[in-house]
């Protein structure tokens, strides 16, 4: 049994003001195995975030079935950790209280939940900043808190929606390396949404290329280049060429259609 099973997912947004329906996701079928690092790659507006939100339970598919660990997804829950595009931390809580928020909701005592959260503060390299508020930290540090917060719940999958899009190039590279290290150390399933071919190739061992609206899966590419990955190696470039060709084919098809 796959960790995540998507069966015939269709999502239609009804645009009430213009009185028409918008087909966003068109019959998505995808299996994601446990401990996979899957990158959903596609242009903006292709519905990749919508797909992630459906797995997270934030949105309902118009039809189709979403199973996580064999269970039908009906609402958001702590079995699926989400890292948002913006850190989306509780601004009134310190870093450690943000990380431990899940434990607070479960009614765990303060010292116990702080002890537990400290392990994840360490994991994302934020020791010394645990008592800072989000407004006192940089975007990258806040995003680390967001990742630690999702990891602490020990979820079956971690869903990430372009979490590094708002970071500068250098911080982005650091964060990508750290994320891979964390994934290797903790052996978790990650679904990572991105529009960057390079980012997908640095991170994923499975790259799902999606088409422009309506979103369909163009191809799911397995990519097992050993890590740390050399982004100048021939293998990396071969894979990149293949994926870029898929994307280009797609835009030519669109150009011809119009």
């Amino acid at each position, binding site marked *: 049994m796959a960790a995540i099973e998507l069966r015939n997912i269709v999502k239609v947004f009804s645009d009430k003001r213009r009185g028409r329906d918008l087909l966003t996701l068109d019959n998505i079928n995808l299996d994601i195995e446990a401990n996979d690092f899957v990158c959903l790659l596609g242009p903006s507006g292709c519905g990749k975030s919508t797909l992630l939100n459906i797995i*997270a*339970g*934030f949105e309902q598919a118009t039809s189709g079935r979403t199973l996580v660990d064999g269970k039908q997804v009906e*609402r*958001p*829950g*702590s079995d*699926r*950790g*989400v890292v*948002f595009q*913006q850190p*989306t*931390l*509780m*601004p*009134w*809580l310190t870093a450690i209280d943000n990380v431990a*928020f*899940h434990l*607070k*909701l*479960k009614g765990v005592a303060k010292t116990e939940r702080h002890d537990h959260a400290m392990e994840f503060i360490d994991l994302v390299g934020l020791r010394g900043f645990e008592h800072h*508020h989000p*407004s*006192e930290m940089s975007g990258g540090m806040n995003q680390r808190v967001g990742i630690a*917060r999702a990891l602490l*719940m020990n979820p079956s999958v971690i869903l990430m929606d372009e979490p590094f899009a708002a970071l500068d190039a250098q911080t982005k590279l650091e964060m990508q390396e750290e994320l891979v290290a964390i994934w290797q150390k903790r052996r978790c399933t990650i679904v990572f949404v991105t529009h960057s071919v390079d980012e997908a190739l640095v991170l994923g061992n499975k790259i799902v290329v999606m088409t422009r609206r309506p979103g369909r899966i163009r191809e799911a590419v397995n990519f097992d280049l050993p890590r740390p990955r050399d982004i100048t190696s021939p293998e990396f470039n071969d894979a990149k060429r293949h994926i870029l060709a898929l994307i280009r084919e797609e835009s030519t098809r669109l150009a011809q259609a119009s």
Partner: protein
Amino acid sequence: MTSVTDVSPVRPAFRLTRAFQGLERLVVPALLIAGWEAFARSGMLPPALLPAPSAVLHALGDWVFGFDETTQTYSGHWLRDALASALRVFGGFALASLLGILAGVAIGWSRLFEKTLEPTLQMLRPIPPVSWIPLAIIWFGIADKPAIFLVFLGAFFPVLMNSIHGVKTVDHNLVRAGAMMGANGRQMLTDIVLPAALPSIFAGLRIAVGSAWMLTVTAEMVAVKSGLGYVLWDSYYFLRYDIVLAAMISIGLLGYLSDLGLKAIMARTLRWQQTTTVQGRAR
């Protein structure tokens, strides 16, 4: 050999600006008072109609400390009068805050409350609190109650409106994050929506405390026989404009102090909010 003090001399001009910085906020009031005093002493108006600041200060001093009975029956009674007004303000404001926050959060959070409660409240809102005075008097008589009722009316709506706004504008993604971490309905309200709405709720409380003072004084002019507003109105009948002005100053001062108190509570509660000025300096 040069000593350390030679390296970084403190320039006198610099020290002067530093000294001035503490005083800059006093410049405008000082000029206004000096101008007023000069105008009052020039004799263009009879002193009974425009008392000089010194006369007002004299009246205020006697009202507070009772040293020469310039203010006759009020001499030395300031604390009692101020306390009477302050208690009405506090009573009405506390009631308005409690109910305003409760109703505001309920309306902002639940469609049901929004549909059932909000239209009625929004219809009551444009009615000036002062226009309730006739009803307040026949319902509650001439005492503290009508004043507290008016204060409540004036303070309730700012708290209500800002609480609704605060809850409605909570970042949608924070609610999603809460759901992702397993918050149930009650936790969503107490642990996410309420703290997120606090800055807006406090803004409402600060507007409300100002309205509260305004309405206490209004009520005391009409429906109550004690407090700063009563002294103000009573002195007007005897053409004691120095006491009228002393009462106005007292109200302004107490209103300002209530706001300072509220601001202090707000600063403690919202310590997480790093306030930045336009220049980008953190304060």
